[in-house]
Structure formats: structure tokens, C-alpha cells
């Protein structure tokens, strides 16, 4: 029996329509604080992912895929239910990690690494590899605000690809940069994903990519689990449904 690394149990996530309020405006309006509306993005989903597994999440736009991924990453907590990562480290890869624009690329590597929970020594070990992979050359010591958008995403990709965590969550980013870097990053992704010790959750609209990479597919529809099972079973049904 393989080890379970992600347990999601009866998770519900609500957006509260928390609108910003204005003190001045609320002074002049009769209804002080409008009753808060709820929007349930995830309506009770349960599943488990075993170590080394690659899970793809599909669903139409707005079905709650990214919300679920962010909740697994711990960016916001579930309103109900439990998400347990069994103590594994996790990182969410999506376009553009939060860089501080006035700081140099090198400093941002350290900051991002520390945010992912790596020690300075660990980052020292890997930093050359990151810089080399990102192909930024001399630009690594210039402020990130001087980077082109391509350079920006190359750096972001390199950081999360080289500073690897036990669980990787990938939100629709399998290739960035120019044609050459795209190929390189896709190869890197593949080797990372195929690693037997790594658990990966991918959100994507590209059924072609998921077909190639995933063991299992979770299909979410309007915040509810529609189907979950081996790729060969779920994907054809999903394709049929969407067409």
C-alpha cells in the first residue's frame, strides 16, 4: 500500500464577496454593511493522492480548479473540511512567482527560496544551477523591474523547477519563454514529474498534455467532483462532455 501524501476530505471553500468598504461611503449609505453573499467555489470534495502519483485536474473555466490548488498549497484555508499534506513540503508553480521588483534576480531567488521554506545554505547550493537554467546571465544581478516578461517567467520557472519540493502543484504552466526555453522547460517538467518520489497535481486545459503525463484525473464541475479515476477512463468522457 503506497503512502498517502495528500488527503482532501469534504472540503468546502467559499468566497465571501468580501468587498472593500469605504468609511466615507458607508457613512452616507443607509444599509451600513450589506449582507455578505456567499459563493461556494468548492462544494465538498474528497480525494487522496498517493506518493509518486500524478493527478490532473480538469473542468471548465470557473469550476474551482485553481481554488482547490491554492487551498492545497495553503494559501487560503478551507472553510470546511480538512486538507492534510502529512508534513510534506509543497510549492505552487504558476506564472510569475511574487518577485520584489526593485531587488535583483539573485536576491529574489533567495527570497522565493526562503518563502518555500528552504534554508539559506540549501539555496546557496542550488543557486548556480538556477541561474544557469534561467539563462539570464549578467541580468541576474540587475533589478527584476528591468526584466522582459520572458526573462521574468524564465526566472520564476527556474526557481520552482530547481528548488524542488515533495509535492508540486502546477497551475497551467508547462512551458514558458521562447521556443528553445519552452522545449527545455517542458523536458525539465517531465523529468520532475516523472520522479518516483514526487507527487504532482496539475491543473490544465490541455487534455493532450494531461494524457501524456497523468496517472489519474479528477474532473470538477461547478465545485463538485464529477468523476475521478485513471486517465484513460476519465479523459474521453470529459472530452465528450466538453464538445
Amino acid at each position, binding site marked *: 500500500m503506497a503512502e498517502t501524501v495528500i488527503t482532501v476530505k469534504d472540503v468546502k471553500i467559499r*468566497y*465571501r464577496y*468580501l*468587498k*472593500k*468598504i*469605504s*468609511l*466615507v461611503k458607508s457613512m452616507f449609505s443607509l444599509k451600513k454593511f450589506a449582507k455578505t453573499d456567499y459563493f461556494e467555489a468548492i462544494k465538498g470534495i474528497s480525494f487522496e493522492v498517493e506518493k509518486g502519483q500524478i493527478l490532473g485536474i480538469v473542468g471548465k473555466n470557473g469550476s474551482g480548479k485553481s481554488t482547490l490548488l*491554492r487551498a492545497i*498549497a*495553503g*494559501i*487560503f*484555508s478551507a472553510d470546511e473540511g480538512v486538507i492534510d499534506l502529512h508534513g510534506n513540503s509543497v*510549492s*505552487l508553480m*504558476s506564472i*510569475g*512567482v*511574487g*518577485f*520584489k521588483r*526593485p*531587488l*535583483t534576480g539573485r*536576491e529574489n531567488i*533567495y*527570497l522565493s527560496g*526562503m*518563502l*518555500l*521554506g528552504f*534554508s*539559506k545554505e540549501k539555496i546557496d547550493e542550488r543557486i548556480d544551477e538556477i541561474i544557469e537554467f534561467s539563462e539570464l546571465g549578467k541580468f541576474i544581478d540587475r*533589478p527584476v523591474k528591468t526584466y522582459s516578461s520572458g526573462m521574468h517567467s524564465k526566472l520564476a520557472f527556474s526557481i520552482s523547477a530547481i528548488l524542488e519540493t515533495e509535492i508540486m502543484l502546477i497551475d497551467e504552466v508547462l512551458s514558458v519563454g521562447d521556443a528553445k526555453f519552452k522545449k527545455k522547460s517542458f523536458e525539465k517538467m517531465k523529468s520532475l514529474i516523472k520522479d518516483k518520489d514526487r507527487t504532482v497535481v496539475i491543473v490544465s486545459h490541455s487534455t493532450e498534455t494531461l494524457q501524456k503525463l497523468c496517472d489519474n484525473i479528477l474532473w470538477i464541475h461547478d465545485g463538485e467532483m464529477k468523476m475521478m479515476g485513471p486517465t484513460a477512463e476519465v479523459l474521453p468522457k470529459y472530452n465528450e462532455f466538453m464538445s
Partner: protein
Amino acid sequence: MKRFFSDIKKFGNYITYSAQSELKAEVAGSFLSWLWWILDPMLYMAVYSFIAILIFNRPEPHFPVFVFVGLNVWQFFSKSLKSSVGIISANRGIVSKVYLPKHMFVLSKMCVLAFKMFVSFGLTAVFLIFDCLFGDPVQITFRILYLIPLFVLLFIGTFAVSLFIMHFGVFVEDLSNVITVVLQLGFYVSGVFFSLENRLTGDLAILGKILTNVNPLAFIMADMRTAILGGDSFHFVAFAVWFVIASIAAILGVRLVYNFENSYVKVI
């Protein structure tokens, strides 16, 4: 609170590294910009000297040191507050990508500001030496050690207020306007460039006493000046009371942010 301290341990690296690199970026950003860490308080002092000497016509003794202590403390406090209002949206990129206890943003910013504050406190020492050479020398005694607990109190108190402001700053869009006005008032009732107790005399003497005792910043400034320049007596009771209040407020602020931090990302 246990969680808070373990988080500080965990993200301590991040706090200091981000503070360091922010300072470095400021230095690298423009030519001689570090000079502004010194010029800024000097120029402000010139402005307040002008007002105190020409308009009030009665500056406090050891005026440069007097103003410097007030200004440094005030700038640290007010800048921490002002940057806390929008600190979550300013770090939107990070907030929406990884989990980080949001207190760390405030702590990191406060480290930057504290560093600048200590740089300009260094200038105070220069003025003290200057006074020794050309004017009436100030007797520095062991009472100067009292500055340490005062700084600790200032740090805890500022942290507590900043947390609350950060929290409400996420949800209230015009909070920064309110803060600006309140800080302006705070500036004048804290006696940054004049002594509340000496200035408010006669019928108003009681007001001066109340302001000094009710406003923690006025009391911190007054006692810091006493610690350096001597003269008045310390307000030990006020210190104890404010220390307890600040600590409780900080604990409440830490809890508040832990409870709500996961909804911040849904709003910004």
C-alpha cells in the same frame, strides 16, 4: 503565540534577508541615496528649529538632540503605520502564490525602519559630542541604559498597532486617508519638537500632563530625552502600564491576523 514564535524562527531568514535587500536596493537605486538616511532627519530638524526658534521664540535646551529623539521615534512609528495600510496589496504577488504568516511583512518593514532609526540616533551622538565641545556638556550616566527598554516598548507597540492597521487596511479602502490625518494630529500632540510639559503651562499644565501620560509616544519621547539629557524624572509607572497594554495588543493583533489572513487573498 507559540505558533507565532515558531513562525518567526522559521521565517526569520526571510525577514532579515528581505529587510537587508530592501536597504541594499535603496542604496543601489540612486546615487548617494544612503545619504538621505542622514539628510532626511537633518533637514527636518532645520525646519523645526526654524519654527521653534523664530516662531515659538523659545527652543528647548539642547535643541538638536531634543528634536532628533522626537523625530526618530515619530518617523519610525508613523512610517510603520503608513506602510502597513497597504502592505498586503503591495505584496500581492507573494500573498497569492505562497503561504506566509502575514505578520512577517510588518516585521520586515519594521526592521528596515528600525535600521534607519538607529542610523539617525547615531547622529544624536554626534550632536552630543558637539554640545560637549562648544556648549554646555551633557552628563551621560547609567540612566542612558533606560533607552533599551524604551526601544523594546516602542517596537512592541508599533508592531501591535501596525498589525491592526494591516488587517483593516485590507478591507477598508480609505483607511490610509484616515491614518494620514490621525498621524498628523498625533505628531502635534506627541511633542516631537517641543516639550508638552514645558509648553503647556498655567491653566493648560494639566492638559500637558494628561497628554504625556495618555499618549504613549509622548511619554516614550519624554523619557528618552530624560535618559539622554537628564533633568526630569522618569515615568516608570507609565512605562509598566504601557508595556502591559502594548503586549496585550500585540498578542491580540497576532491572533487577529492568524484568524483572518487566509481571507486576505480573496479580497485584494
